[in-house]
């Protein structure tokens, strides 16, 4: 194992520890906010923002997307696009029936 590789691994592991503590802190924040019993729409926005940030941390650091190749991002971009289509197209059908 060359020295540069060893240094990279040590740096990566330090990053994992910081991300771990951040994820625990964000979990505590999202649980804490739920005890405030906010209005439904406020609670949804805050909880999903925190969850999205946590998921991004896991993907960027633990799944190491930060150092990934272009082809992986192409797969990911197509996935995200179709995920949102899948998520919101049925909702449009539902909204179409509002007031009927």
């Amino acid at each position: 194992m060359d020295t540069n590789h060893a240094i990279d691994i040590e740096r990566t592991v330090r990053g994992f520890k910081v991300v771990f503590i951040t994820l625990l802190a964000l979990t505590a924040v999202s649980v804490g906010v739920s005890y405030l019993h906010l209005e439904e729409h406020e609670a949804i926005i805050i909880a999903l923002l925190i969850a999205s940030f946590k998921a991004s941390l896991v993907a960027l650091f633990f799944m190491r997307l930060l150092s990934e190749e272009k082809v992986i991002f192409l797969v990911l971009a197509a996935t995200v696009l179709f995920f949102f289509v899948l998520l919101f197209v049925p909702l449009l059908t539902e909204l179409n029936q509002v007031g009927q």
Partner: protein
Amino acid sequence: MEGLIPYITEPREDTGVTNSKIGIWLFLASEVMLFGAFFATYIVLRVGAETWPRGWEIQNVPLGALNTVVLITSSVTMVMAWASLERRDLAKFHRFIGATVLLGGVFLVIKGFEYAAKFEHHRFPSTSTYLAIYFTMTGLHALHVIFGMGVNGYFWATGRSYWESGNKELLISRVENGGLFWHFVDIVWIFLFPIMYLL
């Protein structure tokens, strides 16, 4: 054997990644669509319902939060297992991959207690739409945890023979790809926890 895609541990020149890594990312893409269909179902059911319970009225939030911590910790032990192999430390790899399997088991046991408590209060999938989607989504997620534990258990059981037979890079590559699946399972829970427990 002819016709098989070789398991290569060196990145291909054209893509810059190994065949197996592209394979696992495509598999994860299909998994995103599977869970995406259920998340879409959840949204449609919730938007269309006249009344919908707040998660914290029904769920045991501290237990759900504990399970979140357990799964996040297991993601850390998973990446540490991979990092241990990169550091050529097989003993630490075994400890970390073993801890990952164990934490997966702890997650399932806690989930089992939660399910048991619901059944005790006569709360079944047939009781309400909320409980139907709750049991479906968390049940599907639990199946993924069980599958991931099987894969990681395989690495724990066979890691030494890979290492001693000179297939170090092959083991590192497989653990990295297995880890991608495990982190995906973690990400699904990161969204399931708020929508089922906190909202």
